[in-house]
Structure formats: structure tokens, C-alpha cells
């Protein structure tokens, strides 16, 4: 075997290994219902849930009590409602968001989000808001 061939073989193996392990590890988009079931199998594993803020229910954020505690209710694409707890200040575009992507894991009766991405339509679309 030439040195070059050994190296190329090792590299190819490492590359395939990297891709396989990446795709094996990467979290999936799921619904709250699946999150509850999956949480029993591997507690603490993170998932992404795409959902909407339930604007009928209150969003609790009282920084004077605890600046790192936010509680709200979200509805996923299958219509299931879930309490969400988030350990950071309230994302300010949350209430106008069309969609929230929660990254976190399911506890018994609530979803613990470690990060929240708000998708706001107005960020991308033009609205004649400023025009008078």
C-alpha cells in the first residue's frame, strides 16, 4: 500500500463516519405528542417543535420575580396544546410571531424550551406601516 492510499482510505472512513453520526444525532422536528412519548425513551434529549403561541392564554413574564422565567401556552401543528417554560427573558417579537420553533425537551406536564426562534411575517414582508 502506498502512503497516499492508506491516507485516502482513512479519510474516506472518517468522512462517512462524520456524516453518519451527524445524521444519527441531529434532532428532528416533531409534535408535542411525540415529544411526550420520546421523552420516556430518552429523557433530556432535545427536539424541535414547530408551533404557534396561544394568544388566548396569558404569557407570564414577571422579571421582578424572576428575570429568567417565561411561561406560555403553545399549540403545535396537530392542534395539541402544551405549557412551555423558557429560562430566559421574553423574546419581544413573540407575540407578533406567526410561528415559533421551540428547541428543548418534554417534561411531565410541560415543554422546557432552551431556545425559541420566532418567525415573524413582518420581518420579511412589506407592510405599508410607515407610510402616512
Amino acid at each position, binding site marked *: 500500500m*502506498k*502512503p*497516499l492510499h492508506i*491516507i*485516502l482510505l482513512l*479519510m474516506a472512513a*472518517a*468522512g462517512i463516519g*462524520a*456524516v453518519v453520526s*451527524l*445524521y444519527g*444525532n*441531529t*434532532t*428532528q*422536528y*416533531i409534535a408535542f405528542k411525540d415529544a411526550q412519548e420520546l421523552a420516556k425513551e430518552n429523557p433530556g434529549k*432535545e*427536539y*424541535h417543535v*414547530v408551533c404557534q403561541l396561544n394568544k388566548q392564554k396569558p404569557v407570564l*413574564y414577571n*422579571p*421582578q*420575580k*424572576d*428575570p*429568567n*422565567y417565561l411561561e406560555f401556552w403553545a399549540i403545535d401543528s396537530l392542534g395539541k396544546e402544551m405549557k412551555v417554560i423558557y*429560562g*430566559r*427573558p*421574553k*423574546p*419581544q*417579537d*413573540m407575540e*407578533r410571531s406567526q410561528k415559533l*420553533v421551540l*428547541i428543548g425537551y418534554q*417534561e411531565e406536564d410541560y415543554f*422546557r424550551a*432552551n431556545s425559541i*426562534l*420566532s*418567525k*415573524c411575517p*413582518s*420581518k*420579511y414582508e*412589506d*407592510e*405599508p*406601516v*410607515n*407610510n*402616512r
Partner: protein
Amino acid sequence: MENIQFNGELLWPGNLGQFFIVLCTVASLGAALFYYRSANNELQSDRQWARRMFYVQAFSVLAIFTILFWIIFKHRYEYYYAWRHSSNSLPVYYMISCFWEGQEGSFLLWMFWNALLGLILVRKAGNWESPVMAVIAFVQLGLSTMLLGLGQGSAEWPIHIGSSPFDLLREQRPDFLQIPVMGTVGGPANYLQIFKDGNGLNQLLQNYWMVIHPPTLFLGFATAMVPFAYSIAGLWKNNDRGWISPAITWSLVCVGILGAGIIMGGFWAYESLSFGGYWAWDPVENASLMPWLIMASASHMLLISKSTGRHLFTAHLLVQLSFWLVLYATFLTRSGILGEASVHSFTDLGLSGQLLILLLSLMLLSVLSALRSAMLRRSVILGFVALVLIFSLLTLFGGKSNQAQLTQIMKWTGVIVFTGVFSWFIYQLYVRTRTQQDDERWLSRELWMFIGAMFLILSLVQVFSATSIPVFNKLFGFSKAPAKPEEYNAFQLWLAMPVMLLMAIGQYFRWRDTDARVLGKQLITVAAISLAVTLLVNLNFGIGQPKYLLFLFVGVMLFVANVMYLRQQQKLVWLAWGGSVAHAGFGILLVGVLVSSVNQKILTSTEGIRFASELNKDGKVDEKAVKFNRENVILYQKQPVQLGEFTATYQQVIQGKGNDSIDKYFRVFFAKINKDGSLADSFSLYPKTQNNPKMGLLAEPSTRHYISRDIFTHVNYESSLEKKEPFSDFQETVAAPGESILTSSGKIKLRIDSVTRFNSDEGAGVQLRITAVRLQDSAVLFPKFVVNMAENNFSSIPAMSSELGVLADIVNIEVPEPGQAADKVRFLIKTGERTPQKNYIVIKAIEFPWINLVWAGTIIMVIGFAMAVVYRVKQNASA
């Protein structure tokens, strides 16, 4: 609608601009064709024509650029681009940023650099001019079709080719024409009267780094095209060696500029975004990192090819791959496919199909260049065109009912054809360019350089497959979420170390073979000194984890080995130091990345403090709840809080300049106090918030820079965002200046200090100065009362203080009888009360140790690249 004569529109600049876009496309096509002919027949006349065409093209690009800038500068909001991306209040230096907020402007910027590089190559490329410029003109042709705007704004026409920056507002948004009907401006014909201001530039782009970062990045992208063109030209003209020297120079230009552009983007993120860092493995960042990784490895493969004649295949492949990745980056960021994966906002102009065709047709150039037989080349072109046509027709006329099925079939056909052609290309290229030579020696420089390049490719494989998750989701119907930063870090840490090690010691190997004993001695010295330096600097850094300590050691070695190499090579001219300087700078950069991320300290962490939310129903600590992030503290106004070694006090809020400014700066005073009570150090930071009506609360950090660390703060919430309870307990009292009144609860005393008269557009009025006192706290209120004589009515503007929970409003003025003194005027004042609310901010503060190493390393690296480029240019000129 068709026949409305719209008032106030200025249409000739747009028409002129549109003319230049078409001219640019035609001239690029002409230049590409004539250069193609001239590359084959080497006729001087064809080359002359090609040059003229290219000059016309370059002039058109400049003209389009100028006209678009003029439209933005003159606030011509009848043009959609100006309305969408600028506004009246935008300073001139940010008007240039409008060019890269929109897709059309970005393409224009890219074309501008391409044209400039083309003009340089026309003068400098010599014999290579025709084949190289043919490729460049073809790229330019592809990009200018992105601006054509054919079928834009027309619902009947199903195919859109490009998007023109000169499209009109009323064509892009016909719905806006309906708005004036409601108003009094006289119908849609006068619609412009209500569009006197633009939509404005994204607030986050209004940063000085955003003026310079995108042009640098696009220049990096544009320079990646030149080695690509040389590689194609080398294959085309069957010239195995001649293309390498210029390609090395241009690849070094590209690595240097693209690298600088990427880090500038990181610096912008650090300065103006609130995620608290400079790199987040966001798809947009990765998109520009990918071509950089490959161009860096390509430049080393080119060096090997030049010095030893080996690895020609790898050099060709990597140079071409790098440019494909530039196009892939464009596809990723401009097609809207990343929608959910990135925090960046993307514009999707519905051109993803065209972007894909652009990417594939430039990859097609590579395939064609690898084929020797003219017949094969013709069949490949025919096949590609046929496939594009069939797919377009199927998409358009395939019918709604079986659309999903058709899409599936097309997708899989596409994937299979692409994979097949791609593998075939690699095989053909290998056959064309393989080099028959004896085995490499274990102690040769080329072998270890090659290994280093392979590690960079592995690094790319990981970044590529993780960043492309949304693409694969779409292709294969997965539902994978985008990869997290930790997943990237876990791989890249271990891939970076061997690369760094090889960058450190690679130069100690000689081409072809090295004397093992000399090498061993040198490497042992390097390792020993590096170990000593590592232990020394770690006295300050205090890194404990073995893997990070190892990383630190390799990073230090990268620096030490290259500096020592320079000492050994004193006899060389200093310009030849470029490679070592760039390597050493990269070492400093990576050590900075390591220390500033591993050792960063969240000063506002409330770890260990128990909050009510962490207790369960029995009042005991709920262990599950404790694991939360806990990274913010609340700072009440004027109440000092200990943050790390500092005492931080939120002192006051400062409104941004201008009456309707929505910017707020929060002055936070940091003091470090010695044990004896004296002041060791103090400074104020001004983290900013903007309660943007479109984007929510935008927080801009404020940072104190020291040489050895940064103190980084940003505000995540502030008291005025809280929902206010309404005022109540209203009470009306009559009082004259100098007198005091009490609110209904009797807790707040209001004293009228003085009266001032004023005249405004609304009429004449008075303003009161009232001092409100509640226990120890006081506030000054300025309620106003305006009388409009013409319309015979009056209005009041109440004043309030949240901190005291009081409102004062002038209900009426008791006009004095004739003969009475003017100061006897009495006011009927309405007061209201609510719970006083303290002013506070919720703030996060992070200490980044040695982050300056990141910036310093970058600067040194770029200087190194510049030296290497100048050296190569001089060498090539004398050769």
C-alpha cells in the same frame, strides 16, 4: 387600471437602467462567444471584439449601479427597490448598504467585482486571456440574467427570469394602489403622494461593519472565480502547468479577502447582535466558510503541483469545487430554502429554479472542460438543455392534479442524473490529469501538505452536510432539524487540531524528502518551546480540560513553529515570509477563539440563587427546574448590584436623538472597588434597545474593551415594556401657579411651579411645570393645553410618571376677568393614580477573555496573505 396616468413618477431612469441590464446581458453573451472563438482559433480580431463587448458589459454594470444609487439617493419611491430598502432619514453612507439588503443589489455588487477582475485580467492574463475571460464572461452572463426581470409583475406570464432592481412599486405591489382610494389624494393616479417615505433599511444592517463586510465578502466570492477560470482554461487548452502560477496568486487573494470578509461578519455580529458572540454556525456564516475551507486547501494543492508536478487532479478538483461552493452558498442564502434554519432573514423572489440552473450550468463548464471529445461535449450540452426544458415545461403545464407525483419523478431523475454526471466528471478529470510518478516519501512536504488539505476537506464534509440539512429535508423528505453549534464544535475541534499541527510543522519538511535527523531535532525544539509557552500562557488562561489544553498547545505551536521558521530563513527576502506570517496569524486567531469561548464568564449568572419558580408545591427545591439558563439579572434604577468583580448600577435611560426616536440607551455604571475602598477602575456602558414596530425589541450590545478581555452587555427587557395598569382614582382640582394639590389618595403632592406659553401648528397653548412628590421620590411633569382659535376647539396633552404612578392633565383654564392679574390664571387639573412602577432593565453581561487575539490574529493573517500575493506577483512577473 390600464389607462391611468400616474402623477409624479419619473420613469426614464428606470427605463435607462433596464436598457443597461439588457445591454449587459447581451454584451456578456457576446464577450463569452467571441472569447470562446478566439480561445479556439487564436485570431486577434475575435479577441478585439470580445474585449469591446466586455468593456460594454463593464460600463453597463457601472451604469446600472449608478442609476440605482441615484434612485435611492433621490428617494424615488416609485421604484420598488428604493421604497423597500431605504427611507428619507437614511444617512448617505448607509444608502450603500441598501445594495446588499436586496437580492438584486447583491448580484449587482458581485457583478461589479467580476467586471473589475475581468478588466484586470484583460490587461494581465497575457496568453491566458481568451480562455480565462470566456469563462468569466459566461459567469457574468449567468449573473446578469438574474437581473433581467422578464415576466416580473405579470400574473399571466408564468416564467420569471431574474428580478430587476428597476421594477416599479405599483407593479410589485398593485394592492398599494387601492390605498389612496380611501384617502383624499384623488385616487390611484396620485398614489405617490402617500408613499413619501420608504420602508427603511433593516435596523440591524445600519452598522458601519455592514457598510464594509458585504463588499469584502462579495469580492472574496468574485476572486474565487479566477482560479476556477484558470483551471477550466488549463484543461481546455491542454496546458497542465501554465495555469498553476496565476491560479496560486488568485487563490491566495481569495483566501485572504474571503477570510477577512468572514471575520468582519463575525465582528458585526459581536457588535450589533445580541446572541453574545461572533460565530454561531449559522447557515449564512457556513455558506461563506465552505468555499474558504476549500480554497485554502486548493491553494496548497496548487503549491504542491507547482513544486513537484504531483496532485494536479486534486488541485483542479478543489479549485473548481471552491467556486461551486460559492454558487451553492448563493443558492442556499437566496432561494429561501433555509427559511427555518437560520435567524437571518432571507428574501425569496421565487427564483430558486433559476438559481439552481445557474449553479448547474456553471458546474457544466467543469464537466465540459474535463471531456476531450467534442462530440461528447455537444451531447452533454444538448442533454442539459433538454433536461432543463423538459423540467420547465412539466412544471408549467404538468397539470395540478398530478403535480406532486411529477415533482417526485423530476426530483429523483434530477438526483440520479446529477450523481451520475458528477461521478463521471470526477472520473474523467482523474483520467485527464493523473500524474504518473513514483511514490511519495513519508518525509516529503507534499505528502503532509496533502494530508492537511484532506483534513480541511473533512472539515468541509461536516459543515456541508450539516448546513445542507434543509436541502436534504426537501430532497428526500426528512424532517431533520438544523444542526446545533455544539454538534459543529464537537467535530471541528478534532479536525482543526491536525490541520493546525500540519500548518505548524509542514514547512520543516522539504519537497520530495527530508533528512530525518535534522527534521527530528527541529521538531523536538519546536515542541519543547511550544510546551513551555503553552504552560506559561496557561498560567493566565487557566484552561483545565485536557482536550482544550491540547488545542491550546497545538495553537501555540502553530504560532511558535512559524515564528521559528522565519528565524531560520533569515536569508530570504522578507516578502517571502507571507505563508509563515499567515499561518502564525491563524494560530493566534484560533487560540483567541479557544480562550474567549472556553473561558467566557457570564457575569450576570444567577446560578445558586433560588427563585420561587424553582420551588415545587411543597416549597422545596425542584431539581429539574434548577437546570435553567439563568443568565440575566434585573437592575433597578440606582440600585447597585455585584456582577463578578464589578459593582454595576443602572443609572438612567437616555432617549435617542430626534423627537420620534424609538432608541433608548441605558447608562450602566461599572465600578471596581479595591479592598481598602478606593476605586480601582470604573466605566459606563450604554446598551441600547429599539422597540421596533416591525421587528420587536432589538437590543444592541455595548462593550468595554480591554487588551486582555471584553465586558459585553445587552439589555433583554426593560420596565417600559411591561403592560401598564390603567390610571384610576381620577380627581379634578382647581389650582393656580405656586399652589399645590393632592391626589385623591393624598399620597402624592403636585406643585405647579410655572406656566409657559407657546405657539405651535395646532394653535396657541400653555405648558405647566409640575413637581410631583411621593415620599422621597420626585418627578417633574409637563402637561400641555392647546387652543385652536380657527376651529374653536381645544385639546390637552397629559403628562405622567410611571415611577410615581401619577398622571396630570389640564382639563380647562379659568380665564381671568379683565383687570385681574395674569398670574391669577387658574387651572382645572385632573389627576390620576396607579401603582408606582420602578424603572429597571434585565441585562446580560459576559466577560470574553482575550477576544482581541481573534481580531489581532485575523489582521496578521491578512497581512501574511497580502505579502504572499505581492511576492507571487513579483515572482510571476520576473519569470
